[in-house]
């Protein structure tokens, strides 16, 4: 039984949650993601076994009616206080502390409680709960956490978030047994990207699978997701590498992660949304109308995206970041998430054409019907 696995070893949404499994798969596909580890479902189970032996509390919740909002709220508050307040049991805590120390960073190993890497602590819901978590998950990411005690505290908060009112109500409506519900957690090194955003490995506008569509802005991608800026956008051909659309927008605001002193407080925002440690500022004038990516970076992003798409065998919707630095673009690209593109995947478009008896029949057919304007 392992309570913690590195992201490279994170496999199976049932074991490490969807987010960690996806980051693990990206890592194994050779794509750079910010280094980190997952606190497994086993870690969560060990904690719950300690806090709610025999699962009596959870069984009680399972019996609540979906319409009993007051009852749900009361039970949720009790569970959250229990889970969030106690922190992980000793053997889980030891594993987390060791894995966190392995991420390095901090003030040079003085061993103080605020020593270590700045990390993001993100909930990673299991498959059973993923639909509900896709909503709840937005609220369960904590940025800029530093020091082992703070990391442990926020791991527990992520666990606790499994019992927020929305998630509980959702599960009650589906009649799910609370005994089967679990939550893994991702602990990942913070990145302070120079630019970040989202990309699709097919056109979100036309569904064209031969292009990669990229949107990005300065600093954290949260500015884009929250709608604080109109992002720059590009469309690049997968086949020719030509950048066929470029739209540079005035990026009025920038979301920036500022290390030091912003950790510890609970955040109610994902990496994608501004929270503590994130400063929203006016974009410096000289950057506002400047493209946030160079052509080389655009090409490198597209190449990375194609690799991920090939790995999964279907179009992807990817969160990316480009770090500062002097190295070649592909050395500075990290992906924060990749999931299947769903909009066009759900649309059935007919075939573009079918073979005919003779090649020339295509031309005969073209001129055989009225397409001319009048």
């Amino acid at each position, binding site marked *: 039984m392992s309570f913690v696995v590195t992201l490279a070893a994170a496999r199976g949404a049932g074991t490490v949650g969807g987010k960690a499994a996806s980051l693990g798969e990206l890592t194994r596909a050779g794509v750079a993601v910010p280094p980190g580890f997952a606190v497994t479902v086993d870690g969560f189970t060990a904690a719950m076994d300690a806090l709610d032996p025999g699962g009596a509390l959870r069984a009680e919740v399972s019996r609540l009616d979906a319409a009993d909002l007051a009852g749900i709220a009361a039970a949720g508050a009790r569970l959250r206080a229990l889970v969030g307040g106690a922190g992980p049991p000793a053997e889980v805590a030891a594993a987390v502390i060791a894995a966190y120390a392995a991420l390095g960073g901090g003030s040079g190993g003085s061993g103080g409680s605020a020593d270590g890497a700045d990390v993001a602590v993100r909930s990673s819901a299991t498959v059973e709960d993923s639909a509900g978590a896709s909503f709840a998950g937005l609220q369960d990411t904590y940025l800029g956490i530093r020091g082992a005690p703070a990391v442990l505290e926020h791991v527990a908060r992520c666990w606790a978030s499994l019992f927020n009112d929305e998630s509980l109500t959702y599960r009650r409506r589906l009649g799910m047994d609370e005994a089967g519900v679990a939550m893994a957690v991702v602990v990942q090194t913070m990145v302070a990207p120079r630019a970040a955003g989202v990309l699709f490995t097919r*056109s979100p506008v*036309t*569904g*064209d*699978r*031969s*292009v990669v569509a990229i949107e990005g802005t300065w600093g954290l991608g949260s500015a884009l997701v929250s709608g604080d800026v109109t992002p720059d956008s590009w*469309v690049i*051909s*997968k*086949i*020719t590498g*030509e*950048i*066929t*659309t*470029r739209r540079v927008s005035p990026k009025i605001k920038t979301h920036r992660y500022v290390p030091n002193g912003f950790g510890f407080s609970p955040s109610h925002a994902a990496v994608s949304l501004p929270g503590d440690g994130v400063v929203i500022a006016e974009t410096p004038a000289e950057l506002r109308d400047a493209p946030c990516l160079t052509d080389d970076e655009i090409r490198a992003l597209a190449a990375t995206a194609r690799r991920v798409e090939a790995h999964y065998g279907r179009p992807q919707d990817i969160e990316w970041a480009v770090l500062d630095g002097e190295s070649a673009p592909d050395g500075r690209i990290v992906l924060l998430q990749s999931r299947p593109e769903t909009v066009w995947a759900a649309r059935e478009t007919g*075939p*573009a*054409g*079918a*073979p*005919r008896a*003779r*090649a*020339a029949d*295509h*031309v*005969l057919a*073209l*001129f*055989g*019907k*009225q*397409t*001319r*304007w*009048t």
Partner: protein
Amino acid sequence: MTEQTGFPLPSQIADVPGAENWRSMYQYFTRFQPDDDKRFWFYNSMHFPEPMPAFDTVTAEVPYQAIGANTARLFVFPTTLGIEHRIVNGRVYITANPVLDPAEIERRGAEFGPRAGYYFENWDALYEGWKDRLRALITEIESITVPELPEWEAADVVFGAVGVAQNHYLQENFHRVIALYSKMWHHHTEMLMLGYGAYVVFFQFCQQAFPEISDQTVGRMVAGIDVIMYRPDDELKSLANLAVELGVDDLFTQGCVAAEVLSALEGRGEAGARWLDAFGAARDPWFHVSSGDGFYHHHLSWNDDLTVPFAALPGYVAAVRAGGITPRPTQQLIADRERIANGYRDLLPSDDEKAAFDQMLGLCRLVFPFVEDHKFYCEHWFTTRFFQKVKAFGALLAAQGVIAETGDVFHLHHTEIDQALADVSLAWAAGTPPLGAGHFQPIIAERKAMIEVLKDWSPPPALGPVPEALNDPAVRMLWGITQERVASWLNPDPDEVVGVAASSGVVEGIARVLHDVSEMSELREGEILVVPVTAPSWAPVFAKIKAAVSDIGGSMSHAAIVAREYGMPAVVGTGDATKRIRTGDKIRVDGDRGRVRVLS
């Protein structure tokens, strides 16, 4: 800015002051009729970006009777008759004449299938025969002479019982020049409309499967690598190599004058003679390339004006001395073409679509050699010969005093030249001077003045009511007319020139507007070339520039293909870039979107 919602009607176009008499230059059947107000016409700026001198209207009259005959009568295209053209204020407007009645379409389709199918099934063999027929036409037009009118006929006309005097051949030979031009155009369209059909089908398929694919990318999958178009430039490179090899390269200096270099070579013994032999061999036919696309008499060939090849040679000679000229990376180009085609093919979701893709691409590659190379035979080789012959008749009319100078002949319509030749013929027979001087010279003077005035007129891009849909793939392919294009005509951005995205990339730089390839020496390294049209004779220019913009051309035009090979941005078919951009302007060429912006 108020939004403009429609184009002027043909009947609303006012005469340009100072050129009110423009109608006298053109045939009655080119004038707008009252009913024409009901139809949508667009300005064919692609082929006719300048006001038409009277003679040059033959390049509309003849092609349109050939194209229409081909589609309407010869192959019986189900949905289209011919293209109609009109001239107003010296500019050519056209509209396509569709077949709308479903029963009629079906009736025509029954004829079209077997006729067009025959050509596709036998394409390569028919193209071989086509080349023979074109070479025969070229040989024939080259053999036509302008009769010299002797005081007395040569004795063997009598003793050989020929019985026909030279003045007869004035008109007969001129008629043959025009007739051969018409025949050339019939052959020009013979395979071209079907060839374009193959392109259109493939373009449509690619756009359906990959909505964001650019025309230029489809073009790259189709393009042939080993095409005649590169040959004139390759010949120049060989001549540069030879000059260095023979040790006569010192004569090829920047600014050298062709006539001086050629006479100096005659004094260089064996080496000079060998170079001149090679030069002579290269000139016929490879220097029969037009500086334009053969639609105006002033589109001269390299043979007409050696300035262009001799402006390019010093650069090539310098390159040879500096270590040799890099040959076109044909293997690389072929590999790229296959990589792109396979890349798109692999993205197609079903085997059926892959099979359809293979059929259509295969058909495009089958027709490509014809579609690309016909230009050399028709627009370049034949047409530059054609204009030389007309010019020779002009020299005769000038010598006879009918017109003031040779070039004035191009201000007469071909039917008027025929009249003038009848005059000369009668006068020679009667022993009197021709009467044409008093008749034609004031007309020509007025026309020359009118053409100058008309150059400043900005023709509306279209006339008449905007049709509900512009979905004709052929119109799109040939003329780049799309719904968006029409919208941009209605509400133009004053600082933006819109054209066809021909070669990708975005660059900024200083514009150099050249109207003729003979001005090539003005071009500075790293400038952006802005020209009416480019042709193989412009090829040497591309080594110096960083982007190209043209008034004329589509995604498969010369400028587009060469720019893609050089990997430089190009926007073609803008219609009026040479008017709206001035030399020295800072411009941004966006070869991805087909836009050129004047920055300062």
